[in-house]
């Protein structure tokens, strides 16, 4: 991974964000963090598109699926990965069907699984 890779992490839980920060610590990637979908949109508009977005599902305000769907409309190349402990698969599966969500990863995630998903997303982008 090189410095051109930009990954956006969105979660209302700061501990998750710092964990993800640690997860990518050894990778040479540009990591953006946001604690809500609105904040994330702002970041994307300010700093430009990213290759990968990791988003929580359940957040105050806009939820993860809605957020990723909006992103998909604006930046279709961006791969959205939904990270969620909530098992509302109905909403998620429809989003997966329309390509706005690349993958769904259940919380708590397996590090190797997550790494595999990200590698896959990067190889496609």
């Amino acid at each position: 991974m090189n410095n051109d890779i930009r990954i956006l992490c969105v979660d209302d839980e700061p501990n998750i964000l710092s964990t993800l920060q640690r997860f990518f610590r050894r990778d040479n990637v540009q990591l953006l963090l946001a604690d809500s979908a609105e904040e994330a949109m702002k970041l994307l508009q300010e700093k430009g598109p990213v290759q990968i977005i990791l988003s929580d599902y359940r957040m105050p305000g806009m939820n993860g699926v809605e957020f990723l769907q909006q992103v998909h409309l604006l930046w279709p190349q961006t791969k959205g990965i939904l990270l969620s402990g909530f098992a509302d698969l109905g909403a998620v599966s429809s989003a997966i069907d329309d390509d706005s969500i690349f993958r769904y990863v259940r919380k708590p995630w397996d590090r190797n699984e997550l790494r595999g998903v990200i590698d896959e997303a990067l190889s496609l982008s």
Partner: protein
Amino acid sequence: MVPLSLTFLILIAIFLYTGYYIREQGMHHAINHRYQGVSTLFQELEKQRIDLMTAVLQYAGQQEDLHKAMLQGDRERLLRIAQPFFSQLKTQHGVTHFYFHGIDSRTFLRLHQPERFGDVVERKTFVTAQQTKNPSAGFELGPLGTYTLRAVVPWYSTSNQLLGYLELGQELDQVLANLKRVTGTEFLIMVDKAYLQRDAWEEGMRMLKREPDWGQFTSQVLINRTTNSFPPSERYLFPSKGNDPHHYNFSDNGKYFQVKAFPLLDAKQRAIGNFVMMVDITEERNRFIMFMLRIGLFTLVLCGALFGFAYRTLGRMDRTLVQVRQDLVGEVEKAEQLNSRLMIEVAERKRAEEDLKSLNQTLERRILDRTRKLESLNSELEGQRRELERAYEDLKVNQSTILHQDKMASIGQLAAGVAHDINNPIGFVTNNLGELEQYLKDISQFIGFQAEMIEKLRPDDKVLELVAAKRKELHIDEAVDDLDDIIQESLEGTRRVQGIVQNLRKFSRIDEDEYELVDIHECLDSTVTISSNELRYKADVIRHYGNLPKIYCYPGQLNQVFMNLLINAAHAMDDYGQIEIATWQQSGSVFIRFVDTGSGISEEVQGRIFEPFFTTKDVGTGTGLGLSIAYDIIQKHAGDIWVDSEPGQGTSFTIRLPARERLEP
């Protein structure tokens, strides 16, 4: 009275008509009879005349001076000799014609018309006498319309030489006058116009000093008559056709005549006209009328007398009869009234009886109907009551089921929420632990590297001792050794939390409650995990899982059933026992059996355990719904659940589910 009068009148009429009819018949017979008489008389008169004339002619024929005169052809002399004779004949016997005919058939001399002679004679009587050389006679219709009786004799001389013919003739008048005188009958002689020539006839009539009237009748003319009276209609003058005996009556100038016509025959026996007889019946008629009047009067008087008598006698009788009849009628009427009253009464009675009968029947029927209705109403009510009871029971069950399911759903939602809330921290904790592990490796590696480096530097023992002392003091080696365990144990802890959350979610899938393809073993496992708190101190759970396909079912509901059975089994343990869960597959069904070593269930209780609200637990401890809900759920899956138990020997519950591997519509 009217019928009586009518009868009398009719009788009189019949009497009078009969009288008239008899008279008519009589008159008819009389006129026919008269005709017979007249005919006979006429013929006799004719014969007499003919005889006379023949005798006269034969006498005259013997006169020699006449022979001479004829032979000499001396007409003057003949006239002179015969004239006185003719005159005598004329006055005494009514002879009107005297001829001398020659052998050449020409008239030599007419004594009655001496200036006319030399004409050929063609009359029948003459021709007959000429041919037979014998006397011949008969009536002849002359060309002038005169109907003349003629007699012709051949005239011989004394030397028997035929000199010619002598002829005498006389008009009908004389005969008729004789006939009239003898018979008292008037005559009309009619001749068909076909036998006459008008001019000649008119001249002849005038010669006889009669007034000719050719147009008086259509087809005939009147050539002779004895009276001036005429019938009013021409048809009276013709003979009735066939044998019709009819005759006619008419009145003329106060005189009444009976008229009948007969055919008039000439010497050739031809019907040349009509011979009409007219009888003056004035006297007779008057007599008859008088007679009828008398008779009528007499009859009337007689009838009147009879009438009066009848009126009196019959009237009295009639009155009596009328009275009697009225009485009778009254009686009959009374009887009829009585009868009809009786009939009415009988009819009313009958009707009343029938009414009563039908009323009875109706009543019976109505009572039957009512009874039946009541019965059906009763049974309906009973049915309704039972239905209500059942509905009430169902409602109770449903309510409890709903409450229960609601509870379970709430638990499910709670579990889902909790899962999310727990999963988040577990997520970062796990990952942090992973990081920590990495860090630890790095740090351990670094510490080893440091120690190596320190060795290589060969510091004095004092530094090494200090480091070692510090390491020992801080238990660095132990910590490093232990850190890995700590991390592994922590990770194990997070994994277990994760498992609990997962099982909780799986168990509480009631919220999803979707008919889906499910691994029964997974369901059983999650249920056991959830229930482990209850089970842990009561029993060991032993699983004997067979080879089961995934089947379509409502997993949340099945989990509920499993949990109920497990909890019940745990509660059945007096002390500590064993719960065995066995699964197998057999002929299209999936079987799940829970066998416990608990206290068992009495047979009496076994029959009721699936009833709602049946419980053996203390009040407030159990709802009594667990097994009934389980029963309902299994029923809903088209499966069975049954119990085998003996008190003191433990209990086994077996569930059979159809192994539906496909989603059926």
